[in-house]
């Protein structure tokens, strides 16, 4: 049986990404339907992630599916020493899809190998988080009307930030120019710069985060600079206020500029930015529901044509 699981966005071709965006667009127009009526979606969160879980569960509910699952593995049999394989096999008997967040890298790939029902990776350790990437792509597409030839500025923790790595890889099809803005300790890892060179992706690195540098940005993707990532806390104290976006920095930016953030935000975007029309991070989170509705349908083999027919 063909396994339609979504483990990593790297598996998606350009055509498939555009197809998924088109499907998400349909769900934005008609979020509520009975496409998944009679289906059961299991959300297994071995690591807490309120935002991602609520977004997936909202998507499932809006499609008419029923949701089972857990958000705290302490209350489950895995705390009694059950293997992941056994948990997945057991839940496979109950549900039609498993949406899984796990603290170990590679857990989603493994889960997809031990069951016949589709697995949707909702984050596996520091490895992949494809539904986040899908909603980022959808948000970029929606605000720019295209994914092609954009100037994308990634700001903050580019070393450990899983979302920026996945976004970078998914954008390889669309001729972007990336600007990496990060403190030395959290620079974009060499392996991703090698990847850019192999794929012919242009990139520029900066350590300063100023009005002038972001003047020609189409997308400003902010991430959180976390204290616990620093080996040198002096360095943290020195840079912690450097990578904060303030409203006055946006005066000279392009009119089409769109500010994204995977959330939760702590202080890296000042609150005075929220009222700026270029701030898009809350709509971005809303887009997550549409992107995830598309993902749930796609892994069950429901095509764009079928979605259009039912929603029209």
């Amino acid at each position, binding site marked *: 049986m063909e396994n339609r699981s979504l483990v*990593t966005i790297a598996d998606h071709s350009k055509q498939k990404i555009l197809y998924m965006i088109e499907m998400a667009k349909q769900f934005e127009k008609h979020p509520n339907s009975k496409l998944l009526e009679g289906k059961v979606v299991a959300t297994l969160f071995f690591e807490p992630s309120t935002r991602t879980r609520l977004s997936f569960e909202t998507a499932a509910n809006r499609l008419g599916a029923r949701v089972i699952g857990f958000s705290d593995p302490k209350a489950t049999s895995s705390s009694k020493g059950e*293997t*992941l*394989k056994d948990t997945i096999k057991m839940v496979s008997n109950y549900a039609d899809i498993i949406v899984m967040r*796990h*603290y*170990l*890298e*590679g*857990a989603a*790939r*493994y889960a997809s190998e031990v069951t016949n029902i589709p697995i949707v990776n909702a984050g*596996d*350790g*520091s*490895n*992949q988080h494809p539904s986040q990437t899908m909603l980022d792509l959808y948000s970029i597409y929606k605000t720019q009307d295209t994914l092609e030839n954009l100037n994308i500025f990634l700001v903050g923790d580019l070393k450990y930030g899983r979302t920026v790595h996945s976004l970078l890889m998914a954008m390889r099809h669309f001729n972007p120019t990336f600007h990496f803005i990060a403190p030395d300790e959290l620079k974009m890892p060499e*392996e991703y710069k090698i990847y850019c060179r192999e794929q012919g992706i242009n990139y520029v690195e900066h350590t300063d985060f100023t009005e002038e540098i972001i003047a020609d940005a189409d997308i400003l993707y902010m991430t959180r600079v976390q204290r616990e990532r620093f080996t040198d806390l002096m360095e943290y104290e020195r840079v912690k206020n450097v990578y904060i976006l303030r409203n006055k920095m946006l005066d000279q930016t392009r009119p089409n500029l769109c500010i994204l953030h995977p959330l939760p935000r702590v202080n890296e975007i000042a609150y005075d930015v929220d009222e700026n029309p270029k701030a898009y991070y809350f709509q971005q989170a809303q887009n997550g529901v549409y992107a995830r509705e598309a993902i749930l349908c796609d892994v069950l083999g429901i095509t764009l044509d079928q979605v259009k027919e039912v929603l029209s």
Partner: protein
Amino acid sequence: MSKKKQELQVAALENGTVIDHIPSENLFTVVSLLGLEHMGNNITIGFNLKSKKLGKKGIIKIADKFFCDEEINRIAVVAPFVKLNIIRDYEVVEKREVSLPDELRGIVKCANPNCITNNEPMPTLFHVVDKDKCVIRCCYCEKEQTRDEIEII
């Protein structure tokens, strides 16, 4: 005289395979990778023999055993420069080398402690990214590792 003796040791197979130029420190890893301890064949293992190339080397002679590529290539992880001599009727009929296969299943431990393979009872699986430099990538956590980091299970 001593040279002759050593040649005799190596040449004394009627039929089978001689694996030569195994780095001494990896000899017993090669033995276990090939599962020799479970074989009933007549096997001679030479350890810490003198070698011009390696200083000290190991050598394994297995009577009446001819490996297929898949069986033998797994040792390329720890012994990339071994020479295989295939012996039939006391003659070397074929000389071969080993090369890394495209995939390594159940041989190498993933260096990432947060990888699922280190936390579940399951075999590891690696794609070989660069055969010459021996760069492998875990199919699960997607982290790469090189020869120096490789630990055999």
